[in-house]
């Protein structure tokens, strides 16, 4: 379980958000939505202490990540998988080696076991025959899927997605959404998804957190979102639906 308690973050004089509190239950998929620049990715990077807040705490199974020593923190981070916006693949090594990377450093697996596990992960993300490709040969969608394969290779408890469908065509976005749902179901992973793609939110998330006006403006079940009396949230949903309708028209 991830508990975010009274988190406040600013960069110099610029306040990102104040007093954000929410709880992410085990096995749930929570989408964090909001306008561009509202600090969604910043919040995501606090979950595994890639960034530190000005105030507040994040508890992972009751332990504050910001109070851990660096050695302890690294162990906690190994329980997280994270898919970065651009994939963040290591461009000096092949697709296969990118996925194998955590296994080589954090496990004692033999070369055969590594090969088997990497191929299994690549198959899960529908990239069975792409292991030998260099990262430069991969399309945007493929990069995200390789990033996802790398994120799940150590079978993490938590999976963080930073804009998993941004910049992708609707069909590839749909495939990524399907993957997120499948992974959550088959691997029993707790997922946090940063997105402003409402189509994605509706198809993958159990709960939604809406960041707006430098605070957590709304948090609740996805099904309850459309009946909310939060005007800004409704405007956000309406604007997104208008965009979707415009694209499909």
């Amino acid at each position: 379980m991830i508990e975010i308690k009274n988190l406040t973050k600013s960069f110099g004089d610029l306040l990102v958000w104040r007093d954000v509190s929410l709880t992410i239950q085990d096995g749930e998929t929570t989408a964090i939505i909001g306008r561009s620049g509202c600090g969604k990715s910043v919040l995501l990077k606090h979950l595994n202490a890639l960034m530190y807040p000005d105030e507040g705490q994040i508890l992972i199974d009751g332990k504050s990540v910001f109070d851990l020593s660096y050695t302890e923190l690294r162990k906690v981070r190994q329980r997280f998988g994270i898919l970065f916006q651009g994939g963040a693949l290591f461009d000096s090594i092949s697709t296969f080696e990118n996925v194998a990377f955590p296994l080589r450093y954090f496990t004692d697996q033999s070369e055969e076991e590594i090969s088997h596990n990497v191929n299994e992960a690549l198959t899960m993300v529908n990239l069975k025959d792409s292991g030998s490709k260099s990262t430069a040969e991969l399309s945007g969608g493929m990069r995200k899927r390789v990033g996802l394969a790398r994120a799940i290779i150590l079978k993490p408890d938590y999976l963080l997605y930073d804009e998993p469908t941004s910049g992708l065509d609707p069909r590839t976005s749909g495939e990524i959404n399907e993957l997120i749902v499948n992974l959550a179901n088959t691997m029993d992973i707790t997922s946090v998804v940063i997105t402003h793609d409402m189509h994605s939110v509706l198809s993958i998330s159990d709960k939604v957190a809406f960041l707006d006006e430098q605070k957590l403006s709304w948090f609740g079940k996805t099904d309850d979102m459309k009946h909310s009396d939060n005007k800004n949230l409704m405007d956000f949903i309406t604007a997104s639906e208008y965009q979707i309708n415009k694209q499909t028209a």
Partner: protein
Amino acid sequence: MISAIKELRIAGGIREFGRYGQLLYQALRSSTEFSTYRKNLFHEFVKVGYESIPIIFLVGIFTGAVMTLQTAYQLDTDIYPSTIIGSIVVQSLIIELAAVISALVLAGKVGARMSTELGTMRVSEQIDALEAMGFNSVSFLVVPRIAAGILMFPILYITAAVFGILGGITAGAVDGILPVAEFMEGGRAFFFESDIIFGIIKSFVFGFVITSIACYKGYYAFGGAEGVGNATTRATVLSCIFVLLADFILAALLL
């Protein structure tokens, strides 16, 4: 207004120096995690050492050759014996030129590569990805680069000095101003082993200065492609300045 800008710059400089020191401290602490950076260390040995030999060969040959021709031109009188040319060239190369000119060239080749690599990794979130996986990114990326600089620069210095002397001998012989035997005689007359040790100490320090500044600038780069470009430019300029400063301090302390 001007004094406020000056104060801001001084504060910025102190903050930057503090962050540089912090990175070095982190690197020193994580240097015990040999298994994390072992593979990268050998990779860096090849990149810093082996792949720099061609440019160091050229630097050495031409520095020695030009030095010989210019010294011969300046001492073109009957007052000094011609062997003095060999003495001046050999000692200048060993004490100063082989180390400093190599360092300045390597600040461009090795330092720029390191800051660009790390800067690109930073802005494309590859360093975040390493940290998020549970890696110590300083141990993985910074330690092997600085270690390779410290260990390889002395070897490159010796290479530059040897090829510099060969360049000097060749230029003297081909130009007909100094036979090989006289060059060697002059070189041997003022050859002190302590000069080589001084040169090695210098190159060791230069290796540290160049790689640590490059890693610092790259590791903390921000702002996309332009940010990486700025980081690389600053790393190269700062490396050159601090190499010259270190050269002066070492000469004042050790000679």
